[in-house]
């Protein structure tokens, strides 16, 4: 088992290095960073000098080595656009994204699970069908269009909720800024969280429904029924409990993609999080920010995957045997 864990750790490290490599190679091809850093009428000689100074004229291998060595220390230098250390910029933006991701995850679970349970238990009722249909609309419209429509309805037409930004934020302790403690912050959170959570909500609803339907057909539920247990007890005591394990696992795995999807939501709502920072960086060829963001997302996924793999290995002896013999 130790050997297995060790090997998986090594593999994860390899993945991270590969991500760094791909990230680096990609950046070689997306635009010209120097052009972003200088004014429109900077002479060519000056541009060349900057190029030299940034090491963009060094051999590619040297640039890669330097990149990976720095990445290992999570040092990505100074953002080309903001002239600020990248680590600091990301740290400042992280609370916004994490709060948004968390709230939208809670929203998608809180709405998705009950809807899933209902649609499984009352498969043929009109309401269940309506839920199914409405949830499908959630995955049938592009996120940005949903966001714009929500803004149009709730901000411009009704004037109930703000159309952009985070509202009033409060600083907590060492730099964590939260919008959860003010009314304007909470109001600002509603539309982006719904926009971001809608897709996951649909996913969870469908997953719960499918799992529920499967569990309801298993022998032990039939047995419980035969024992004369109350339907309610069977549904919520046994069926739902067994359904939730895979749902939570998937939801956990989805956390990474929520953060990735946040790029679009943050763009529409001008939410000052990491996704917006990243998209802006892509548009301005701000390589240090792109690098740091990619590495961070890579790290996040690798860690989540590692945990899931290890848990599976612990839970499922058959898989453990397969992996052990490989």
């Amino acid at each position, binding site marked *: 088992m130790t050997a297995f864990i060790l090997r998986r750790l090594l593999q994860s490290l390899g993945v991270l290095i590969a991500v760094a490599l791909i990230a680096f190679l990609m950046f070689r091809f997306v*635009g*010209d960073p120097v*052009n*972003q*850093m*200088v*004014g*429109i*009428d*900077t*002479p*060519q*000689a*000056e541009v060349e*000098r*900057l190029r030299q*100074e*940034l090491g963009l004229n060094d051999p590619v291998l040297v640039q890669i080595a330097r990149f990976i060595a720095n990445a290992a220390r999570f*040092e990505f*230098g*100074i953002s*080309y*656009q*903001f*002239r*600020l*250390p990248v680590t*600091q*910029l990301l740290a*400042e933006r992280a609370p916004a994204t994490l709060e948004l991701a968390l709230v939208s995850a809670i929203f998608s679970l809180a709405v998705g699970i009950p809807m899933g349970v209902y649609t499984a238990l009352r498969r043929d009722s009109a309401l269940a069908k309506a839920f199914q249909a409405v949830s499908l609309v959630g995955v049938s419209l592009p996120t940005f269009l949903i966001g*714009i429509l929500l*803004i*149009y309805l709730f*901000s*411009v*037409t*009704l*004037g109930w909720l*703000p*159309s*952009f*930004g985070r509202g009033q934020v409060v600083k907590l302790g060492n730099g964590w800024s939260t919008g959860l403690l003010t009314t304007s912050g909470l109001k600002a959170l509603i539309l982006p969280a719904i926009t971001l959570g809608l897709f996951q909500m649909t996913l969870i609803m469908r997953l719960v429904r499918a799992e529920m339907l499967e569990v309801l057909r298993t022998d032990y539920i039939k047995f419980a029924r035969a024992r004369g247990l109350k339907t309610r007890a069977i549904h919520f005591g046994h069926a739902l409990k067994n359904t939730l394990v895979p749902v939570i696992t998937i939801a956990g795995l989805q956390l990474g993609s929520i953060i990735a999807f946040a790029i679009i939501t943050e*763009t*529409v*709502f*001008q939410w*000052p999080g990491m996704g*917006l*920072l990243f998209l*802006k960086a892509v*548009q*301005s*060829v701000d390589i240090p920010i792109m690098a740091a963001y990619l590495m961070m997302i890579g790290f996040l996924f690798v860690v989540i995957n590692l945990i899931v793999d290890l848990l599976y290995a612990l839970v499922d002896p058959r898989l453990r045997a397969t992996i052990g013999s490989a």
Partner: protein
Amino acid sequence: MKQMDKTRLPALFAATLLATTALVTWSAEAKTLRWARSQDATTLDPHSGNTGPNHVLGHNIYEPLVIRGFDGKLVGALATSWRVLPDNPSVWEFKLRPNVKFHNGNAFTADDVVFSIKRALMPAADMKSLLVSVEDVTKVDDLTVQFKTKGPNPLLVNNLTNLFIMDKEWSEANNAATPQNLKEKTENGATRNANGTGPFTLVSREPDVRTVVKKNDAYWGNAEYNHGITEIVYRPIPEAATRVAALLSGEIDYLQDVPVQDIARLQTAQGIKVEAGPENRPIFLGFNIGLPELRSSDVKGKNPLADVRVRQAINTAINRDAIQRVTMRGQSEPVGMVWSRFINGYDKAMDTWPKYDVAAAKKLLADAGYPNGFSITLHTTNDRYVNDEGIAQSVVAMLGQIGVKVTLVAHSLRVHFPGIQRGEYDFYLLGWGIPTFDSHYIFNDLYRTKTPSAGTWNGTGLSNAELDAKIDSLNSEVDTAKRNATIVDIWKWIKENDVYAPIHVQFIAGAMRSEWTIPTDVENTPKMKFLGASRS
């Protein structure tokens, strides 16, 4: 918006407008200006980025020696008077404003000016190109400085309007003695802190999110400039639809970079008004005339664009009125040259363009030997100028009508600009702001033969020694009459050769809640201190 037919606005709007009106309960005493535009300043460091958004914020916190008002006229800021020394045309002398204090209380003196100009000349600074002619800056006394130029430079003062003066003492104490060097891993003290002499002091700065400044009660000009603003909250909103929504829903007071298609809507919205006017920035198409054979054309062995008749044909096939009316929704002024009416050298009589005439254009093409047209690729930005990609698309359709089959390639400016500078395009769209308000700035970058220090943006392959000599002579000609005669000469040559196809001067529009009146700034950098006179 004379040509907009309001009956076309759907009923949906009426409902929205009512709702918006009901929502906004704006008090007339509000003194906070909530200001939004498409992009943020990249840094507060006044010498680190020579771009509009940086100067917009800079002008509220820092001050240059001389400043341009909303109309583009020069006004003294930290300098009260300036002149070229009568006995030495290579020296400019500036008298400085007395009793000026920086935000931290330090006194403003000639030392700060010398420090700031030298800082702006450092390798890591981005304002150097405006100071290429400066050889040295010296202090004469506490309130007098002299700029020594490499040969006479009659226009130096025009180059100083965005060169902000920093506090020497503060900068040295706060790791800001030099502009941010990207190789350094630490933050420069001036990147998000500021200590200027300007009308507002910095309260907080979150890059790309929000910047707050408050009125500087110790400002020297408070008596003169009665802008009445106590606080400015500046927030960048890149997404156009979100930006407009924020104004409509009453979350902001003043919006720069209003999308042209939303102007009509905003003008009819209750409680909102729009100010629009021309920017000092022509938009035009560049032809690559230097190549022996175009890279993107089906014509092999020769370059159709090298034939002036082909260029004239394209010029004639472009329906500038339609672009102005439809693509720009009235928010532009067609031009016949790569210039604007704000610059020295502009001549109304020469500002003409061929009448839109498909038949004439086809004939010109046929005369040049291309009766069936040819194919070519047009490169454009999609994130730089007002409706840039829309203009290019319109041109594609118009040229399609004379048989020139254009493939459109739209890119972000980060990809487009290097392509022009490397001369990689056959046919491209570009815009040119003219900060010095002088023709030379246009000639030197767009028409002069490409060298490391001139012709940087000349992607046409144009290289004409005679023209170059004339352009260079403008650098040091002190006799204004002679200089202007040369400028006229050059424009005449340009008129005959059609190396570029000028389209229009774009308008910039600002929309605001109706209790504000913020005029259009010809450089698109509104300076809020000048609002005093015009605030309703």
